[in-house]
């Protein structure tokens, strides 16, 4: 396709925002977010923790002890950096891969495991934890985000709604409807598209003729930015800015984070060697968010191997405990499932409740 000058001009405006380059050097001093040394270390702690958790989750899945799992390695900066920019009162509407963000927003780890295992208690968000259940339908969370953000604005909650999807999700009708509604109603919403280059096996180039996903914001009349999704400082800075923009009444923001998932789409049989080359894997691993941020922290004398080792051990211990807690959840009964169908059950479910009570008592 030969694109007109006008179109090329629009597309070329969406340059990748970066603060920390692949070598762990600050390349955009002016944009450096105002984070204390402790906060910087916390970002690294969370990324290390999440990487270990991911490895353990994969292993637990292979042992048949976890259930549904969508690996996150490679996307830590994109996930952790954006969540770190939020406040407790903000709402997260996650997709099924976005479990680290909701755990750092207050969902207990063992509950995330229960969700993976297909236990109804996995969706029971604790009081005061503003998180929706991970969405399975690609894009459904995006239109809902417009609604949650409108609700927050109406209740004057001083908070925003943030949602996550992937590059494939940006092809859904709900993506366009969601960002368009949010813009039309000027609500405090942040739409994060984690462009990890593959929607299961289909590469992002086949999703759209658009050069970037960020530019899709233009059509909705909202702000759109593309960020190096392997650079936690850049992701944090732009999400923070987007949050403030929403609160200031200046509309929603679409953030495209350029990232990569090292592992398979999910642990349910996906084999990335069918659609990706090891050359491409290598290229992206050189951009690794942990490697570059570790270099940066080391250059500031903020990080040591011992510290990292301690976090690794802590993560392993926490996961062991969380699995144990998840094991302790009651075995699900059909009567449990019937009881969460409504405030007052209709006649058919009332009858079926009796039927299953009888069955379960045997």
């Amino acid at each position, binding site marked *: 396709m030969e694109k007109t000058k006008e179109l090329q001009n629009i597309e070329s405006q969406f340059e990748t925002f970066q603060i920390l380059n692949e070598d762990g050097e600050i390349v955009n001093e002016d944009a450096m977010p105002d984070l204390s040394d402790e906060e910087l270390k916390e970002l690294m702690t969370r990324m290390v923790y999440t990487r270990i958790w991911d490895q353990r989750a994969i292993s637990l899945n292979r042992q048949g002890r976890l259930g549904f799992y969508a690996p996150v390695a490679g996307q830590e900066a994109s996930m952790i950096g954006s969540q770190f920019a939020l406040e407790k009162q903000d*709402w997260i*509407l996650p997709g099924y891969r976005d479990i680290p963000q909701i755990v750092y927003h207050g969902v207990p780890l063992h509950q995330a495991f229960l969700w993976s295992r297909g236990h*109804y*208690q*996995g*969706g*029971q*968000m604790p009081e005061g934890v503003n998180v*929706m*259940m991970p969405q399975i*339908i690609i894009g*459904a969370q*995006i*239109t*809902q*985000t*417009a*609604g*949650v*953000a*409108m*609700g*927050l604005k*109406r*209740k004057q909650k001083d908070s925003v*709604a943030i949602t996550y999807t992937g590059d494939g999700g940006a092809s859904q*009708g*709900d993506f366009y*409807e*969601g960002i*368009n*509604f949010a813009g*039309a109603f000027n609500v405090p919403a942040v739409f994060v598209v984690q462009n990890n280059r593959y929607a299961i096996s289909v590469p992002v180039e086949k999703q759209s003729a658009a050069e970037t996903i960020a530019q899709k914001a233009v059509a909705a009349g909202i702000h759109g930015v593309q960020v190096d999704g392997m650079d936690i400082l850049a992701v944090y800075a732009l999400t923070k800015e987007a949050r403030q923009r929403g609160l200031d009444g200046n509309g929603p923001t679409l953030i495209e984070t350029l990232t990569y998932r090292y592992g398979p789409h999910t642990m349910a049989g996906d084999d990335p060697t069918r659609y990706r080359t090891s050359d491409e894997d290598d290229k992206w691993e050189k951009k690794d968010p942990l490697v570059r941020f570790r270099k940066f922290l080391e250059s500031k004398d903020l990080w040591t191997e011992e510290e990292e080792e301690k976090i690794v051990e802590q993560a392993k211990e926490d996961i062991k405990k969380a699995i144990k807690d998840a094991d302790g959840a009651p075995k699900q009964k059909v009567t449990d*499932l019937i*009881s*969460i*169908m*409504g*405030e007052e059950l*209709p*006649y*058919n479910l009332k009858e079926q409740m009796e039927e299953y009570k009888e069955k379960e008592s045997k």
Partner: protein
Amino acid sequence: MAQMTMIQAITDAMRTELKNNEDVLVFGEDVGQNGGVFRATEGLQKEFGEDRVFDTPLAESGIGGLAAGLSVTGFRPVMEIQFFGFVFETFDAIAAQMARMRYRSGGVYHSPVTIRAPFGGGVKTPELHADSLEGLMAQTPGLKVVIPSNPYDAKGLLISAIRDNDPVVYLEHMKLYRSFRDEVPEEEYTVELGKADVKREGKDITIITYGAMVHSSLKAAEELEKDGIDAEVIDLRTISPLDIETIIESVEKTNRAIVVQEAQKQAGIAAHVVAEINDRAILSLEAPVLRVTSPDTVFPFSAAEDVWLPSYKDIVEKSKQVINF
């Protein structure tokens, strides 16, 4: 008491709940300034402001997502789908999202959304405006489905729907909007969801129906009376959940029944009612329970509606078949 058409009663119900509860919001395509394409929201924006009654962009899935999102932040959205045939565009938001909100969250969240939409044959609309798609909704766990047949019920049921803490699909038959007036109290009242209404008592056969077919069934009952057949007519009012007690009580009395629906035959509400009667009262039956429905084609092009839709004559004929079995 005032004389109201069904559409006036619907507007009155929304006005009542907008007044009662500031978390009630009314929105959809053209519902604001224009008062809705049928004027169901006439005057509401003027009375309650653009903040409470508003137009949305033209995108049904977006409207459904907006309602779902608002509902978890404490609002009671009353969303309009301009014509129910457009529900396919927002089926995910309704059936896969709102209807599962309580279940998916293990009871933590719920979605008190009312989904209003006009539907129903006989007014010669373009394609996908008039289809009877209530069966799709009734098959979805977590949804209630309400179809009023008259102005009094329309107001009371809509108020109940808006007050319900889970999603309710509230379908308004276009042919009934302005076809007649009823005494409707100006003050608030509710008609309980899940409760049928015996419109005519009889001892020979029970005609179970809902929506516009209630009127065809009542007309059929008058015809049957001329032949000495005393028909009981039940207006289901809520088709999910069914009022099973009223149905079974009546069938046990009359020992004969037919089920009448405007929708196509296969896998419909009527089939479900027949199955429930068989499960619960088969030994009371003197004859098989038959159905009067439309044929299993796509909803017809407008000029063919008259030959396609069930008429009171079909009901008379089917009733006699059951009586003479």
